């Protein structure tokens, strides 16, 4: 489990670019999510104070949106698409193969925090169904065999 990030300094950098309008809540949370990989409680409290909102309101907004995570996520985020085209072309099998290989379910991260797994309703690369993303890379026309190739290669590289 990685140490709690140095919230104060990093968050201050983010907040310095905002005026304090409450409509900036989501972009601020998005930047924090990008920087820390999740939203630590302390971050949400500080953001609330900065925007003059209650903790409750910040919590209410952040839990509404699927983009935000409240537990640390792995270094490589795996996003498996469960969109219609991907579903019809066997996306569920790909998800199951990844679950089997890494031993985690959507919403969880591997012990070594190398990978976390989530699903998304649609990546938007439907002509390449079934698709998945690992970090910033999109993989199309996935097969269970390709799952082995992708994660085997990553294991070799690390």
């Amino acid at each position, binding site marked *: 489990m990685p140490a709690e990030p140095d919230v104060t300094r990093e968050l201050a950098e983010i907040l310095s670019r905002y005026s304090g309008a409450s409509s900036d809540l989501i972009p601020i949370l998005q930047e924090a999510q990008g920087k820390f990989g999740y939203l630590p409680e302390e971050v949400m409290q500080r953001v609330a104070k900065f925007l003059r909102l209650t903790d409750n309101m910040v919590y209410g907004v952040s839990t509404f949106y699927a983009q935000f995570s409240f537990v640390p996520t792995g270094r490589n985020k795996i996003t498996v698409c469960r969109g219609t*085209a991907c579903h019809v072309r066997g996306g569920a099998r790909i998800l199951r193969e990844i679950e089997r290989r890494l031993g985690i379910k959507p919403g969880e991260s591997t012990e070594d925090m190398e990978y976390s797994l989530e699903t998304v309703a649609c990546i938007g690369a439907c002509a390449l169904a079934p698709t998945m993303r690992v970090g910033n890379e999109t993989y199309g026309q996935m097969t269970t065999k390709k799952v082995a190739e992708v994660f085997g290669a990553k294991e070799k590289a690390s």
Partner: protein
Amino acid sequence: MPKKKPASQADNKRTILVCHGTGCVSGKAFEIREALEKEVAGLGLDGVGVDFTGCHGFCQQGPIAVVEPEGIFYTHVTVEDVPEIAQSHLRDGKPVARLFYHDPVSGEAIPKYKDIPFYNKQQRIILRNCGRINPERIEDYIKAGGYESLRKVLGEMTPEQVIDEVKRSGLRGRGGAGFSTGQKWEFCFRAPGDQKYMICNADEGDPGAFMDRSTMEGDPHTVIEGMTIAAYAIGASEGYIYIRAEYPLAVKRVILALKQAEGKGFLGENILGSGFNFRIHVKEGAGAFVCGEETALMASIEGKRGMPRPRPPFPAQAGLWGKPSNINNVKSLATVPVIIANGAEWYSQIGTEKSKGTAVFALTGKIANSGLVEVPMGYPLQEIIYGIGGGIPGGKKFKAVQTGGPSGGCLPASLINQPVDYETLAQAGSIMGSGGMVVMDEDTCMVDVARYFLSFTQDESCGKCVPCRLGTKQMLDILNDITHGRGKLEDIDLLLKLSEQIKAGSLCGLGQTAPNPVITTIRYFRDEYEEHIKKHHCRAAVCEGLVSAPCSHTCPANIDVPRYIRFIGEGKPAEAVAVIREKIPFPSVCGLVCFHPCESKCRRGQLEEAIAIRMLKGYAARHDTGLWKENLKKAPPATGKRVAIVGAGPAGLTAGYYLARLGHSVIVFEALPEPGGMMRVGIPDYRLPKDILRAEIKEIEDAGVEIRTNTRVDSLDELFKEGYNAVFLATGAHQGMKIGVKGESGSGVMDCAEFLREVSLGRKVEVGDKVAVIGGGNAAIDAARTALRLGAKEVTIVYRRTQAEMPANPEEVEEAIAEGASIDYLVAPSRIKGRNGMVDLETIRMELGEMDSSGRRRPEPIEGSQFTTGYNTIIAAIGQRPEVPERFNISLGRGNIIEVDPDTLATSREGVYAGGDAASGPASVIEAIAAGRQAAISIDKYLGGKGEIDETLALPEGELAPLEEAEEQWRPKMPTVPVEKRLSNFGQVELGYDDKAAIEEAKRCLRCDLEERE
């Protein structure tokens, strides 16, 4: 190294444009472009440019690269291809043929963009620049006429004139609701307020839709220009583009485009000196589908939970921060510059009366050409799927097309003859939505599709409205029950009732439309729901709650396929036969002639090819030692009941076998001199040798079944009078159907069933040298191959549709061709006339027209294309009908089949059951066997028994050898008698696998039945 500013296409002799849409980028498009730049520089090629474009919308063919000015379209480009492209094409002018696009149906190579049907049948207005310009270079957009419309609007038109133009064009919102765009602008224009907002909805959340993504990645400026024109029309000085965060490349391109537009004075203060100010901000969605709904979207921009609110007030009066706001979809805005440039009249001439312009569809799923298709409204749906989409790959049958995303519905084959516009889709129970179009085939389960969509909308429901929040959950629970075998028949009506309540009680479009997939699938595919509930059967073999292994699930007799294949793999074929005989009494017959529906669902088929399940069955049967008999239970004491079975075909004999094993006295009456039905007189010896069939029939007789041949049954009353307690009618379908043309009753024309019967019974049949067989089913192929063996020199099969639609087994068709038969496709008979001992067959050429309800395109004759060929014999193999004596006094259905209860096989007469071809119309051996099993169950129950016909014949499996990792491996070739040796006799052609081949093939099985399940 500093990046050199790429010269424009006009300056270059050749430019290669690498697609940099998300799809192609995932295929390493960035690396391809870099490699090309390096290679071109390294080769010192002057006047050759390397550039990139946005998404072509044909991602399945990616990575894509286009070479201008020739317009050569390269597909599936890899980094390794770069040196060859650079040297052969860019330097030497010779395009690289192996990278051309290949039509997925014909296989034809099509080098140029403009010749590819997927593109040239489209009318790309919204997507006009996608794939043609560099989206990160505003100069490209300007050169393509960009920002001219903005100039015109700001320089020459008042807001009222702009609104009028858009209204008159007939443009309707492309986000899905289809409201008049011009009208919406007018509402906002008229609303009083000091601050107004213009919002672009780029939250494309519909799974299966990616046209907004492509537009923003490929031509962001058209959206910006359209948005600015809209802002001017309504009087907004601030704008927001709300893009979902899942589109990082689109976000990047839009932000860059905004900066460039500001730089050129198209945005910001005093745009183009007009005094009009407009600034656009980008807001990213945070992963909530409901934020595609306009009031939820605005709440999200305001930094709140994205929950919809009631309207009125409408956004036009009170929207973002309570100010008048106008929200439009990406595609609507992308159309605006074109309408201003070409005029409302021009635009309103495209499309239909109520739906003007073009629509962009994301055609995905089970389709050969998957991608973005832009066509005029009113374009026939069938043409989109077949003409542009290239139809269903893998020889699979079209089943349904889902339109409109999770808010839409599934349309069956019978409805795809329609033009696509807002109204026709709504009438069918679906919606246009954002344009998602997911094609589904026979391997898609419609109940699973409904469940899938509900799980999506349930997850995305914001929770505000109880009917949506709880209603969708209840519907999902019911659908989960149905797909896991816990459903009840009442559930179907309950789903419909819940649907009504959820629609009526939900505040926003999500809840109001969430039930649509359920409503349409029940409307058009109710029988699938009923099968799941009543029979725990999923015909697509998808629902994991019901399907252990797709092969055994799909087998009409539910033979435990993986188990017998494992025994074969362990070198125990006798055990394998025991497993097979647990379900059917005809392992050899099926091992030779079954049409193997199991193989069509075999999961290995998704890798290389399906396991040779039928051939392995045949192998096991050939190595039977009789082991199965050791585990046979002793037959119980005689029940004293007597059952009469009419017809000694697969249905009759199977029913007889199981009834005798239950202790009943069984007599089978057979009109012909030999038992076996179609197995004996329909299927020729070279496929199913007589002695093999005889041996299996003997086992049935040994079980206590008496067969009386040469005995025709005319009256059921007589049977009951003679003391039989129940009757099973399994008389098959042996009466050949008429072709329906003049002259067919003359000499020289034979009925196929009669022809095959005469030959099998050993009677002499002369066919002459030239034979025509009319039809495309297995019977036609059997007739053709038989005619060749009777000495015919020229055998032609005449079929009215195409090869892809022929019902005959492809393996059989292949063998017929190898043996010398030829097949004329798209040809139908029109007249027959005798002439000097020969018979003239006049035929007419056909072309495929509209789709009929069976999911096949109806052949239409081509006027004046008749041609005549002379033959010695014409064999009519159109189909067969059952012959049922009137004295039976039972209800008959269409095609003269005996009407039966689909579950019990009971006829309209008490104590009388029917099954096999007589009740279904011509089908197959295995389906007849399955009917025989069901008849035995029903009759036993009728006679006071429990209807338990199954028994375990094989020993339990021991410890299994671990499954080897699936290396790419294909089936061993089936040894057959060489063609030269075949035609002089009727000897068996398929020789069967040897031990080595069989064990090797068995080991390819993925053991789906052992998969872990929740």
